[in-house]
């Protein structure tokens, strides 16, 4: 019976995928994509993941996990599988899969969708699960520690550097997204500001009034957040109040930096922990609601399967389909960052090795499903509207009138009236050049929701979606600043011991300020960049993230090679090879492309040339110097990422070669077998 269901799922899935791939010229229904996704995930989980756990990893349910052996009732605690799943998903769920697919939709719906599905089933989910398993077998050692044990000192350092670098770039780009969503929008700004006191209120509620009642607290919090969405509308109507919340980009960037700094030094229970609960529930709730709405409405995708921009001339970001669709999707398919969560915390909770598949593979599947939803929401929009929202005006001719003319000439007809009507409907002054992905996702989500749950509420749904994304982004922003702070304190502690004390206030303030300065710099330059900044920062983030995934997969492959499972090494080796090709190609182009829109260095010299010959407009000339410096810093970072990735890969190959020749190797650091006391887990 189970086999029959499996075969049925496989047939439906194959049908849906080929339906998506073959269907050209006529619009395709979003249900096809939903079906293909659900079927592929089911097959991946039921067959591929099961095969990997049984054959490649040889999961042994009779083996006691570190949670059981080292059980101390504090950090090592054997925990039921769904509780671990909840913990793990909350930690890996971020705004990345909402943004990447929205931007990647510029190539059409097909390439992004295929990579989200294939990349996650064969790459991202596998990475999360394998790293979780390996760390579980090593008493919950972190990725950095495993890299040091298995590859050597260099690998360990590379993993640590990679983490800090990604944090900085990630926070900068997310800050930019939220700034662009709030720019000159009193409604959005008021709503986003209101989320801060709401989260603090919930923090006090959960700490003092009703500890641990998460559902209750979340219900109150979400009600208040919905009220904040409506309240933002009132603020927007009020002639005086609205001016308090009407700010330009640089002002909002300073606000975000100040916020990040304060949030990172406040105790976690006050702001970070409660908002984290809210954002996880919001994400799950919204994604389920979106899926239901798509099932009811069965909307057709208006974006073509492939657009002309696969040739690299796209207005949202420059670069050809290969490699930039992979770099842009990033976290929705493979996220190196998850390897940090899969090692370290989660393994200390796993009660039996049999749970590794659900927690590792399963939660990444859910995360990838979020990315599919974002892709559907972006491709439902009229392509003309989608490009008008997501492209900077500088990329489309400088003015709204020029922008619609350019887009119409490209075959994506749109008018300024149409854009103005839409902006009025969602309660914004303008929707032109609202780069960063959040506003376009919000318009997409609002149009799905309002068509099912009431068409008059478009403005409410739009700002609900903005609030939803902002809540995530702010959580990542202060959690990331905090993580960066720990790393900086760790490093500074080597120089002078007191600086390493995580609770010594002067050290906390100094290290937080250093981290905020790091990402604040990139954020500020992004805000003053007339091309919107996202076109520079997002690819840089994608390269960094995929580099970290490469490091994680290299560690996993090295362990497979060392432990006599070389014939299965392709399970992590193939995704690694693909990521190495993609990341290297993208980094190479970002460094050495002669096209000033793609290459960082070419962009810098192009700016220098234009500045010298005086062809730049005054406002652009004023910021050109800063942009040039920034482009050169970006180039240096890209070169460093590329170097780090290849050092780790070569290290892995060296170890593989030694293992093949039978040369002596540091012994695999797996903890010894001990039989589990959990009889039911052992199946006995």
């Amino acid at each position: 019976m189970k086999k029959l269901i499996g075969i049925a799922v496989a047939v439906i899935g194959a049908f849906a995928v080929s339906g998506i791939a073959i269907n050209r010229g006529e619009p395709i229904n979003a249900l096809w994509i939903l079906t293909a996704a659900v079927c592929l995930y089911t097959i991946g989980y039921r067959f591929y993941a099961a095969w990997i756990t049984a054959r490649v990893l040889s999961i042994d349910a009779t083996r006691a996990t570190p949670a059981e052996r080292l059980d101390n009732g504090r950090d090592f605690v054997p925990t039921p599988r769904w509780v671990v799943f909840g913990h793990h998903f909350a930690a890996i769920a971020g705004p990345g899969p909402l943004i990447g697919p929205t931007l990647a939709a510029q190539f059409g719906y097909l390439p992004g969708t295929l990579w989200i599905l294939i990349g996650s089933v064969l790459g991202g989910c596998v990475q999360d699960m394998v790293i979780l398993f390996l760390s579980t077998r090593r008493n919950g050692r972190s990725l950095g520690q495993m890299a040091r044990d298995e590859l050597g000192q260099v690998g360990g350092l590379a993993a640590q550097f990679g983490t800090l670098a990604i944090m900085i770039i990630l926070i900068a780009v997310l800050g930019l997204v939220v700034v662009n969503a709030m720019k000159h929008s009193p409604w959005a700004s008021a709503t986003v500001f209101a989320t801060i006191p709401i989260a603090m209120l919930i923090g006090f509620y959960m700490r003092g009034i009703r500890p641990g009642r998460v559902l209750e607290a979340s219900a109150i919090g979400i009600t208040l957040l919905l009220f904040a969405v409506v309240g933002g509308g009132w603020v927007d109507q009020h002639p005086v109040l609205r001016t308090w919340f009407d700010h330009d980009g640089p002002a909002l960037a300073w606000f975000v930096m100040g916020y990040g700094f304060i949030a990172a030094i406040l105790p976690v229970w006050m702001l970070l922990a409660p908002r984290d609960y809210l954002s996880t529930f919001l994400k799950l709730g919204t994604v389920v609601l979106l899926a239901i709405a798509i099932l009811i409405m069965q909307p057709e995708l208006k974006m073509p399967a492939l657009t002309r921009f696969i040739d690299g001339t796209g207005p949202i970001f420059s670069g050809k389909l290969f490699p930039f669709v992979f770099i842009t999707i990033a976290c929705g398919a493979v996220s190196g960052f998850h390897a940090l969560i899969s090692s370290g915390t989660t393994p200390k909770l796993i009660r039996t090795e049999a749970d590794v598949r659900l927690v590792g593979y399963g939660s990444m599947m859910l995360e990838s499903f979020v990315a599919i939803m974002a892709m559907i929401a972006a491709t439902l929009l009229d392509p003309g509207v989608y490009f008008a929202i997501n492209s900077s005006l500088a990329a489309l001719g400088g003015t709204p009138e020029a922008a619609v003319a350019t887009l119409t000439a490209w075959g994506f007809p749109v008018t300024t009236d149409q854009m103005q009507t839409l902006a009025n409907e969602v309660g914004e002054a303008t929707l032109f050049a609202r780069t960063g992905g959040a506003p376009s996702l919000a318009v997409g989500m609002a149009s799905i929701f309002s068509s099912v749950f009431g068409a008059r509420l478009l403005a409410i749904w739009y700002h609900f979606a903005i609030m939803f994304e902002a809540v995530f982004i702010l959580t990542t922003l202060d959690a990331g600043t905090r993580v960066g702070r720990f790393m900086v304190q760790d490093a500074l502690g080597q120089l002078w011991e007191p600086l390493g004390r995580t609770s010594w206030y002067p050290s906390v303030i100094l290290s937080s300020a250093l981290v905020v300065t790091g990402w604040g710099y990139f954020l500020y330059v992004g805000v003053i960049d007339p091309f919107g900044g996202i076109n520079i920062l997002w690819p840089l983030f994608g390269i960094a993230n995929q580099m970290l995934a490469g490091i994680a997969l290299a560690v996993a492959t090295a362990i497979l090679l060392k432990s006599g499972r070389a014939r299965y090494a392709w399970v992590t080796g193939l995704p690694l090879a693909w990521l190495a090709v993609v990341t290297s190609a993208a980094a190479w182009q970002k460094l050495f492309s002669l096209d000033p829109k793609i290459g960082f260095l070419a962009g810098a010299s192009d700016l220098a040339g234009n500045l010298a010959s005086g062809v730049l407009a005054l406002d652009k000339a004023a910021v050109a110097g800063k942009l040039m410096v920034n482009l050169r810093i970006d180039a240096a970072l890209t070169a460093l990422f590329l170097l780090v990735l290849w050092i780790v890969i070569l290290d892995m190959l060296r170890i593989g070669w030694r293992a093949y020749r039978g040369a002596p190797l540091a012994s695999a650091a797996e903890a010894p077998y001990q039989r589990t006391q959990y009889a039911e887990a052992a199946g006995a």
Partner: protein
Amino acid sequence: MRDRTIMQLIRRTSLRCGTRLHDIIKGASGLSAYEQYLGHLHARHPDALPMSREEFFRADVEARWDGVRRCC
């Protein structure tokens, strides 16, 4: 006769699914975390003094955010 068996089967299955769903939601949301902790302590560390509900959730928050705990 047969109908009744089928109805019973449906009722039992849906009841089981409902309970299971409830367990999943309670577990994944962290709602039952304290009860889980008490049960675990009782079973595995019978001589340890359990934390109060308030203390437990304080410790839980500290533990959740100590180190790299958030992704993109």
